[in-house]
């Protein structure tokens, strides 16, 4: 097991390195001169040159790349002398437009994204998986057909559309909720809850629908397996048959999917955050894209990729734990 973990971590490291490299390449090639955009309106060629020097933009490509890599471990100084800016390790970039360490910017906004992700995940797991299991058990009944129609709608509706409609209904028309504004939980739990409720609902609708359909398929498949017949032939009660024998094979793939989906959300539910005006990591990226704040875009991309890679490893390990057939066991 330990050897496997080491191998996976090593592979993950390689992939991470490649992701950094390609992200760097693409931004290097694609972006219009960042110095110009930092400089702003009242710019002179001298100032642009100065900024370019500060950012090390005149260096050859690989030098810039390795500087960037090194910065992740030891931090980095931009420019020199009095106007020097220090970026602490791990440094994944510095935004001159917002005058902030990118990693710090992400960390500041992480709580919002995490709250959104966790809340939505709880909602969609409870509703989606439960609905899927019930649908599978009651296959063909009105409950099943109704639930699946609802789920179908859930995955077909664009989430920004749902978000806006929900906001329109609940905030503008019915005035049941105020416009979402994030306050710390300790300041006002009620307002905190009100701020997150709609993003949770929007995300949960989409994911719950997906998970309901998937769970239903898995459970139906499992119910048709031979070992279910054996369980019944042993004279086990209906509950034991379903829960003990039916759920574990069905839900194990769901767990692994959950890991990846959750990690993706941690990288910021970009559209949801933007529509509801919540200041999470996704919003950070979106705003940065709008003004072409390259370091931020790069930084968020890297952090998001990192989260997904780690999640894949965790999920892989989890799967080995849950499915005896995959385990490298000693007989």
């Amino acid at each position, binding site marked *: 097991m330990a050897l496997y973990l080491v191998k996976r971590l090593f592979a993950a490291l390689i992939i991470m390195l490649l992701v950094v490299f390609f992200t760097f390449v693409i931004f290097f090639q694609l972006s219009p001169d960042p110095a110009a955009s930092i400089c702003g309106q009242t710019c002179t060629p001298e100032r642009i040159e100065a900024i370019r020097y500060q950012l090390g933009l005149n260096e050859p490509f690989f030098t810039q790349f390795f500087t960037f890599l090194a910065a992740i471990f030891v931090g980095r100084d931009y420019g020199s002398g009095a106007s020097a800016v220090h970026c602490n390790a791990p440094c994944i970039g510095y935004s001159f437009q917002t005058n902030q360490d990118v990693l710090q910017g992400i960390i500041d906004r992480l709580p919002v994204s995490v709250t959104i992700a966790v809340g939505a995940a709880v909602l969609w797991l409870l509703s989606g998986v439960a609905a899927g299991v019930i649908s599978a058990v009651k296959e063909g009944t009105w409950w099943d057909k109704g639930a699946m129609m609802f789920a179908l709608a859930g995955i077909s509706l664009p989430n920004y559309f749902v978000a806006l409609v929900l906001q329109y209904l609940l905030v503008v028309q019915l005035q049941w909720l105020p416009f979402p504004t994030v306050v710390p939980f300790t300041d006002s739990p009620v307002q905190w809850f009100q701020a997150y409720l709609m993003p949770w609902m929007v995300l949960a609708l989409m994911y719950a629908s997906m998970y309901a359909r998937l769970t239903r398929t898995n459970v139906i498949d499992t119910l048709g397996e031979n070992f279910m*017949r054996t369980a019944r*032939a042993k004279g086990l009660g209906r509950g034991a048959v379903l829960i003990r*024998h039916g759920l574990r094979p069905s839900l194990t793939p769901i767990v692994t999917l959950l890991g990846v989906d959750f990690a993706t959300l941690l990288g910021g539910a970009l559209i949801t955050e933007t529509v509801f005006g919540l200041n999470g990591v996704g919003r950070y990226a979106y705003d940065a894209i709008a003004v072409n704040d390259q370091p931020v875009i790069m930084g968020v991309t890297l952090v998001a990729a990192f989260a997904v890679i780690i999640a894949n490893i965790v999920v892989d390990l989890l799967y080995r734990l849950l499915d005896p057939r995959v385990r490298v066991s000693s007989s």
Partner: protein
Amino acid sequence: MSAQSTETPVLSVRDLRIEFPLGVVVDGSSFDIARGQTMGLVGESGSGKSMTSLAIMGLLPKEAMTTGSVRFHGDELLHRSDASMRRTRGDQIAMIFQDPLSSLNPYYTVGFQIAEAYRAHKGGTKAAAMTKAAEAMDRVRIPDAVGRVRHYPHQFSGGMRQRVMIAMALVCEPDLIIADEPTTALDVTVQAQILDLLTEVQEMTQAAMLFITHDLAVVSHISDHVTVMRYGRTVEQGTAEQIFSNPRNDYTRALLAATPRLDDAVDLPEPILTNGGE
């Protein structure tokens, strides 16, 4: 093979008829099985033999319409409530299925699955049930039963897995054992060992056994009586000696004359995973 007894047969099937919306699968099946006796139910795929066993267990799908009588120790089994059948299943009537790999839940240890059957009917603690499971595994000659109780199905070879299934069927000491093609998915060499095991088990417990198969060669080893089925109908019945030495029906004769493997590629044996196994 004991002499004919005059007591009530363990299982008594009369005019059993099973009908699905798509058609009739069993049309008028009748036979008795006494204590310590084995009835071989022979036929090709689709002859209705498996359906018969499911009817006895009460495991037919909802769409099935059953008429006739199936009496176990004199009590009618057909049309009983599921709750009532549950008490009987696994306890007094146990079933062994064809493919032990897919018939065991890969997520639980074999000990757990055997113990489960025991606890469901006899109660008791988990530990006690696990001990029973180990005992059952030992009785079916699985080496190092106590150690292997904690192993998972995929860690056993095909033959060993089938022994696990048999152990699971025996743990509550049933009066009737239904074996549905228990050797079909196994290697030929292993088949003989399993058949011997089943014979031994029956002699020990004096349980009645319904042995379902398409393979007449297998039937000759193990059955006292034979019922030959075709397209849901019984074409011939009698003692094993009668059927083998003096078959009266053309179909039976054809079955006897044909090579041992009558069926098509569908029933090819599964690849066996050996684990120091047989």
